[in-house]
Each structure stands twice: as structure tokens, then as C-alpha cells.
């Protein structure tokens, strides 16, 4: 899949990390949106046509798992739903049941994510 021109939402409470990841996807010609909590992310998802989502799991105000549940509840259609974490108690299997496509560990290898997007 050609990802240039596609849109991606990056969700992380770490503002600097969010920015660094955004630059990488912007370099690939994607439309990048940023959010720093689950609650603000769901507002963007409802307002914009988003193809990909990359979200952190642990966040103070509405974490990544809550965000997954809300996406499912609101039937928001996404091409892929990626998650990233430094540490989580959730298993890969549980997260996939909630609709996650793939889980990435921090620090992120952006090329790996891009490869997965292009392989779709």
C-alpha cells in the first residue's frame, strides 16, 4: 500500500516523543495528527478521516486500552491500529481482541511500522 497521502494519528502523553514520531511520518508524506490523551484522540478520530492510529498504552487521562474500547464502541473504521509501550501489564492477545493490529516496544523502530503499513 502506498502510504503517502494517508493520514495517521499519533497518541502519546510524551509531547516530545509524539513530535519526533510525527516528523518521521511527515517525511514519508503522510498527514500526521497528534493527541496527548485518549480523550483528545477520540475527538480527532471522530472529526477527521484517519487511516492509521499509533497510540501509547499508559497515559494519565484515558489510556490506550480505553481508546481501543471507545473506537470499538463508536465503530470508527481504521486501516490499522498500532500500539506502542515501554511497559504494559496487558498481553498481546488481549490487546488484539480489542482490535489492535500490532504492538511495538519503545524505543520505536519507525521503519518496521512503515514496512507493516506498506505490506497491507
Amino acid at each position, binding site marked *: 500500500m502506498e502510504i503517502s497521502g494517508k493520514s495517521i494519528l499519533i497518541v502519546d502523553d510524551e509531547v*516530545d*516523543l509524539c513530535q519526533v514520531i510525527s516528523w518521521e511520518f511527515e517525511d514519508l508524506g503522510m498527514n500526521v495528527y497528534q493527541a496527548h490523551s485518549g480523550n483528545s484522540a477520540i475527538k480527532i478520530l471522530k472529526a477527521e478521516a484517519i487511516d492509521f492510529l499509533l497510540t501509547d498504552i499508559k497515559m494519565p487521562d484515558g489510556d490506550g486500552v480505553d481508546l481501543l474500547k471507545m473506537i470499538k464502541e463508536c465503530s470508527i473504521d481504521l486501516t490499522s491500529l498500532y500500539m506502542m*509501550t515501554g*511497559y504494559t501489564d496487558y498481553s498481546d492477545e488481549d490487546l488484539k481482541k480489542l482490535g489492535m493490529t500490532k504492538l511495538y516496544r519503545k524505543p520505536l523502530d519507525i521503519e518496521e511500522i512503515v514496512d507493516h503499513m506498506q505490506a497491507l
Partner: protein
Amino acid sequence: MNKLQLNAQSFSNSIGSTTLIGFFIIAFILSSIFTFIDYNRKLSTEIKNIEKRLEGVRVSFASSLTNSLWKLDDEQTKIILESIINLDDLIYVEVKEKDILLHRVGQISSLSTKHMSRSFPLVLKYRDKNRHIADLTVYATTENVAKRLNNELLFSLLSEFIKIFIYGILTLVFIKLVITRHIELITNFFKRSNINESQEKLTLNRSFEIWKRGPDDLDHLVDSINEVVENLQVELHERKKTQKSLEALNQNLEIRVEEKTSMLLDAGRIAAVGEMAGGIAHEINSPLATIHGLARRVQKLCHQKKLNPEILNSHTEKMVMTIERIFSITNALQVLSKSNNELEDSIIYIDKFIEKNLRGIQEITKFGLNSLDFVLIDSPHKFLLDEAVLYQLLYVAINYRMRFFDKSEPSWMRVEFLVDTDSNNLVMTFFDNAKSLEDKDKENLVESFGEKDSKEKGSNLISSSLRSFAEKLSAKILFIDHNKDVFIQIRIPIKGHI
């Protein structure tokens, strides 16, 4: 089986002596009463006999005496009067005519009151006319009767006493042989018996009791005693066995409780540390990922020859800030990782303590608390305490309280630090979302951090860890639990404020 021998008992202490004395007294009293009754009966009979004799004088002698007086036959008169006083107990007789003494026989003491008298008129029938000639007076004494009866009484009492004494001794010997010696044997059996040891059975020697035909009350008593002793020994043996097993069980339980307590404390520390480690892993990974991303970005821009000093400066500044964040976390970790059992007191400047540690605790509690603040109430703020343990206690207390927060609501916590110079305590008070907790409740703090609250909250691991750290500093945890609203105050004795 050996028969128990009867021990010699002093007579004075035996039941036999009491029985004998009692028997003597009662028998003697009863015997005396009956003897005196008999004495009185006999005395009365004797008096009546005297009266009869006096009356008999009139019948037997009045006529002949009247004739002899009429004939002035003094000789005959004297013979008749002597015949009268020869009668038993009669001592004196006199004949008077109008107060003139005509004849008298015998003697009478005027002082003696122990006599009876009777007067009869002597009347002669002459030419169909009754002529009063004189008066006959007869005196009888009761002294002889009294003497005789007194002698009889003394003899009777003496013989009764001897009879009673002999009966008593015989009764005592019989009672001693048949009952008392067995009772003494039974008493000795109980005195010598030790219920804790097996012992010979109680047996009575009754071989000489030839009149005995079959088991009697004493035999039944001995059988019952033996049965009771045997049952008691069995019961005691069973109780000892049960006690031993209970002691063993108790010892085992104590060991297990100690092990479990130790495990619980360890588990509490591990759980607290584990939970913290998860948060820390995430918190360190995120800034690391940021630094990693920024470094790669710099590298990429460099390769593309798009790196200018402004971008480089901006990126490196972010990297430095992020690294500083990591340092604050690792500093907190260093303090938390200290596990010395010995306290190492050092001078703590409470304002610097807050400044140094607030950021680290904020970082590692970020996902449970939206807002955390430390406030120093104006007070002396230098004192001696183990800083690492104080930090650990503070951290675990915050963690403990965070467990009760409703996660759907934003949460905040403010910890007030105050050095109470009156009690020489560092007081840490935790104010938080417990909105419904009224101020008056907070004044009624209780020292309660027992099993109930920790069980109900399912947080016994953290609470045991909190207790453990509190014990290290001899701190008192005051506590109010209103459903979800928990208010904690920790009072830590300080070595002295400076």
C-alpha cells in the same frame, strides 16, 4: 495387688472419739432425765405410803387408845403409843387434852421441816353419847425416805454411767472395725494418690467380718472410687495427649504464621516495588524513546545536510531535559532501593527533602495521580532521621492511598509536612479526594491499621509494607476509613529538631 495398710491414727483425731463423746453425753443426759423422773415417782409413792400409815394409826389404834385413856391406864397407853412410833417413818406421838400434854413418845426437832403430822380426835361413846376425851397427834419424818431414795439415785446414775461407757467403748470398737478404719483407709488412699501416675486400686481388708454375706455399701463405694479414679486417669491421659498435640499444632501454626507474615511483608515490599518498577520501566522508556528519536532525527538531518545550529540546539536541549527527567527518576530509585535494616540517621532539611524528592515521586505516581503536591507548614525544619526510610514510607503511603481512588475521577493529593515541637514528631498529613470526609472526622483519628481495613480493601500487601516501614521509624499511623474516603496521618518521632 498389694492391699493398703491402715495407718495408726490418734484417737483424739478420729471420728470414733467424737462419736463416743457424743454418745456419752446424749446417753448420760437421757439416762439422768429418766432416773430423776423415776426418783420423783418413787418419792411420791413413799410419801403416799407415809400418809397411809398415818391414816392407819387412826383406824388401828384410836379405839384402844381411847379406852386406855378412859380407864386411866397409863401403862396400856404408853404401850399403844410406842407401838405407833414403831411403825416405819413415825417418830413422835402425843396426846393432848385441851392443850394439856397428857402423854408423849419419841422426839421431834422443832427445826426440822422434813416431817408430816396428822391429828385425830379421840372420842368415847358413853351412855349413847359421844364424849371427846383428847386429841392424838402423830408425826412422821421423810428424811429416811429421802436418804434411801438418794442412795438409790446415786447407785442408779453410777450404774447407768458404767453401762453407757461400756456400751460406748464396744460401739466405738465396732464402728472402728466396721466403718471408721475403712474411712481412714479411703482418706489415706486419696492423700497418697497422684492422679498423674498409675497407682494400685483401693482395697479394704474385711476378711474378719464373718457376718458379711455379700457386697455392701462400702464395697460399692470402693468400686465407685476405683472406677472414678480410673476414668480420671484415662481422661487426664487423653487431655495430656490432646494438650501435647495442641501445643505441637500451636507451635507449628506459630512457625507458619511467622513464615506467612515474613512472606507477606516480603510480598508487600515486592508488590510495592513491582508496581513501582512497572511505572518506572514505562517512565524511563518513554524519555529514552524521545532521546532515541531526537538522536535519530539529528542523524537523519545531518545525512540530508539539513541540520542547522538552531535545530541542533533545540533537539539537544530537549534531549538534556529528558535526560534530567531520567536522573530524577533514578535518584528516587536509589533511595527506594536502600534496604538496610539499621537506621542511619542524618540531618534532614525538610524543605530540601521535599524539593529533592517531589519530582521523582510525581514521575513514578503520575499514572495514579493527576496532581501531587507537598506543602511545608512553617515550623523548625531540621531534624535527625533516616532519610531513605522516610522517603520509602512517604512513597508507600501515597501508593496505599492511591489504591482507593475512583479511577473514573481526576485524582489529587496534597501532603502537608509539619514538625510538631510539643510531641517532637514529624507529622505527614495526606489530603486528597476524600471530599465527604468532614473536618470533625479528621480530628477523631484513630490508631487503626489492622486486619479489617486491609482485608476489606484487598490491599494487605501494600498495607503490610506501609506498616513495616512505619515500624522501622517507630511511626504511628492514624487512620480514618469512610468507605472509599481514607484519611491518613503519619506521626514520626524525630531524634531532635535543630
